[in-house]
């Protein structure tokens, strides 16, 4: 045990402020920043433009109805479509509504005048929100306009299982916190494992651990794993209470899953250092693998729509099974079995990367020690 504590003292106790900044301050600040950024949950007053070629009671009524919707804000009335297109290019409106000539007259004659909606699908998320609101608002207005209208004979109630309020921004926030800690764990693993190489203190490191390379490695990464996991745990559940309540029964499996993810990420970092023996190159590899990991994890764009080789790569990242574990638990008791499968996968990953990391680091230490 003495050799273990000697290693901890060497790496953590030498007033390495940057390590603490990287391990504690940055992930917490980044996570809190992301939570604040997405705190509005639903955008309001999204600017839209109107091109109206019909100066009628109906067009004015539709305009008022749209303006009353809290998500939409009729910002500009353009004389023609070209001017509104330029406003969209400048980012001043997100959608344009086109009321055709003699719209009211045609609607009263049951000739179904078509209202065109031009959206800016370059901002896909906002465009979808705007479109959904316009459909509902104008659909309601249409129903109240027609004397013949009947109730829909078939209507659909869409329910999002595990997310009844449809708080996707909240879930995006939670997943982004996981992505931040995925990167953080990899980075800190790389940093701690490479620090003695960077400062050319490999011999001192091994001596501190009474000549045991395994103890030296364990002493270097174990406290880091615990600190990062603890931060992750606290911030994750804080974010969850902020965005969506979580059942106590889910807490244990998620916490264990997070532990496995942190261990696996540290292991990956150790492998990079073991393979390269350089903090700079290993950090760059961490950046390349861990930086865009969220894009590969299937939460924003589904895994099933990705090419097979990308899907295989996604399953090499510990982030993917942890997000799947969380997703399965959203479905309640029925998701427990699937969550358990993801947990087993994560445990296998953690064991694999940790063993590989230890072996490669052991080899690299021997190389540089000699």
């Amino acid at each position, binding site marked *: 045990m003495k050799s273990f504590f000697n290693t901890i003292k060497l790496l953590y106790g030498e007033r390495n402020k940057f390590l603490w900044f990287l391990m504690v301050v940055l992930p917490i600040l980044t996570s809190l920043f992301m939570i604040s950024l997405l705190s509005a949950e639903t955008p309001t007053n999204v600017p839209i433009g109107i091109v109206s070629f019909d100066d009628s009671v109906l067009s004015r009524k539709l305009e008022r109805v749209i303006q009353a919707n809290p998500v939409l804000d009729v910002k500009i009335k353009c004389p023609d479509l070209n001017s509104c297109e330029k406003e969209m290019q*400048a980012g001043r409106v997100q959608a344009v509504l086109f009321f055709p000539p003699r719209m009211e007259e045609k609607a009263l004659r049951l000739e179904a005048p078509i209202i065109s909606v031009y959206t800016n699908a370059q901002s896909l998320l906002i465009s979808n929100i705007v479109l959904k609101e316009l459909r509902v608002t104008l659909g309601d207005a249409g129903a109240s306009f027609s004397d013949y209208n009947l109730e829909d004979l078939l209507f659909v*109630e869409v329910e999002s299982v595990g997310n009844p309020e449809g708080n996707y921004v909240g879930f995006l926030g939670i997943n982004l916190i996981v992505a931040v800690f995925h990167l953080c764990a990899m980075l800190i693993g790389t940093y701690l494992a490479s620090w003695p190489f960077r400062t050319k203190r490999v011999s001192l490191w091994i001596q501190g651990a009474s000549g045991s390379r395994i103890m030296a490695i364990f002493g270097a990464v174990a406290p880091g794993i615990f600190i990062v996991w603890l931060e992750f745990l606290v911030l994750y559940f804080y974010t969850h209470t902020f965005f969506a309540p979580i059942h106590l029964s889910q807490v244990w499996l998620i916490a264990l899953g997070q532990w496995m993810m942190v261990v696996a990420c540290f292991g990956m970092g150790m492998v990079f250092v073991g393979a390269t023996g350089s903090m700079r190159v290993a950090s760059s590899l961490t950046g390349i693998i861990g930086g865009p990991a969220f894009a590969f994890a299937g939460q924003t764009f*589904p895994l099933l729509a990705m090419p097979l080789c990308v899907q295989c790569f996604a399953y090499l990242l510990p982030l993917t099974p942890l997000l799947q574990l969380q997703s399965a638990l959203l479905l309640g008791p029925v998701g427990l079995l699937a969550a358990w499968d993801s947990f087993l996968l994560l445990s296998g990953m953690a064991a694999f990367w940790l063993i590989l990391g230890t072996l490669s680091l052991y080899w690299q230490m021997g190389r540089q020690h000699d």
Partner: protein
Amino acid sequence: MIKRFIKVVLHEWKLFFTDPAAVLLLVLAGVFYSVYYPLPYVKQLAEKIPVAIVDQDQSVLSRQITRMSNASQQLQVAYVYGDASEAEKAMAEEKIYGFMVVPKGMERQARRGESSGLGVYTHGAYVMLHGAIGNAFATVAATASANLKVQKIATTHKLPIKKAMAARDPFPLRVQNMFNGTTGYANYVVPSVLMLILQQTLLIGICTLGGSRKQRSFLSSEKRFSVVENESLMYRYFGRFTAYFLHYCLFLSFYHAVIYQVFDFPRRGAAGPMILFAVLFFSATIHLGMSISLLFKRRESSLQVFLFFSIPLLFLSGFSWPHSAMPQWIQYISYLFPSTFAIPAWTAIEQMGAGVAEIAGYLCGLTVQMILYLSIGLFWTYKRR
């Protein structure tokens, strides 16, 4: 004078290809990321998502709904169950991502003119699939319902079918995408990310190479006291600036000519706005890099710090989450980073074909940043000489 200047530019440029860290960050990263990042999204759209129908009605109408669902572009009816619990289990195992429950007696109720509700259940964790599945099932139900409703209106009010259709929906909506016509996910995400890649690699590269420091500790003692390292402040600062600027202009051209072509992204940018954009964006970023490079003691520290900033910076640009929905203090912070103005400016130019007048607001922001960071960079370099 020009000879001295060119000497500094060439010396710095040579370093990009000779220093291993610089090769990785300033040469390989920009190329590698631009190919690696779009890969998950090459298919652009999620099509034929596996779903199930829980058919408790077992009627002609319920089978018609199943066939219509399977025919839609977004859905593939992978299973038809009789019980909702089987579908829930399949969803938990991610064999399906949603299911529709057709209740018992639906057809009979509909034929009698009574409303009947169809429950659609999607996986709560997947935002994009929820939207796609919900919309597709809603369209199927609306189409089936519209047929029944039009027949009902036509027979009740003795109207021709065309009028009955208009009575059902007096002013139908026609949706057209003015830009990103295919609503491709890659078209939406990748152009913004490419600009972020340029900014991040540039900032990290400058900080790793020591920015504008007079004597770079990573150089060998022979090189450290070279003529270039001891050049006067203006030559050294602007010589290095020019090397970074020209190097990154090549990247932008590479993205425009090769990456956009390979991944088939819309290319509507005219030369004038693109050149102006490049001048302002790269100037602001390089001067920011020169200013903050002095803060880092170790060469790799900037990489470790800036990696954390990548996700927040992407969101700060407002490309996926509108600026107006962010808290005020975050909006103020966002104005410090060139990407906040550069990402919307670039997508406006390249994806939407905007001219200088349309993106003037973003360009003004970049100009202010450029002037501010140039002043800070020069001041700090002078102080630390």
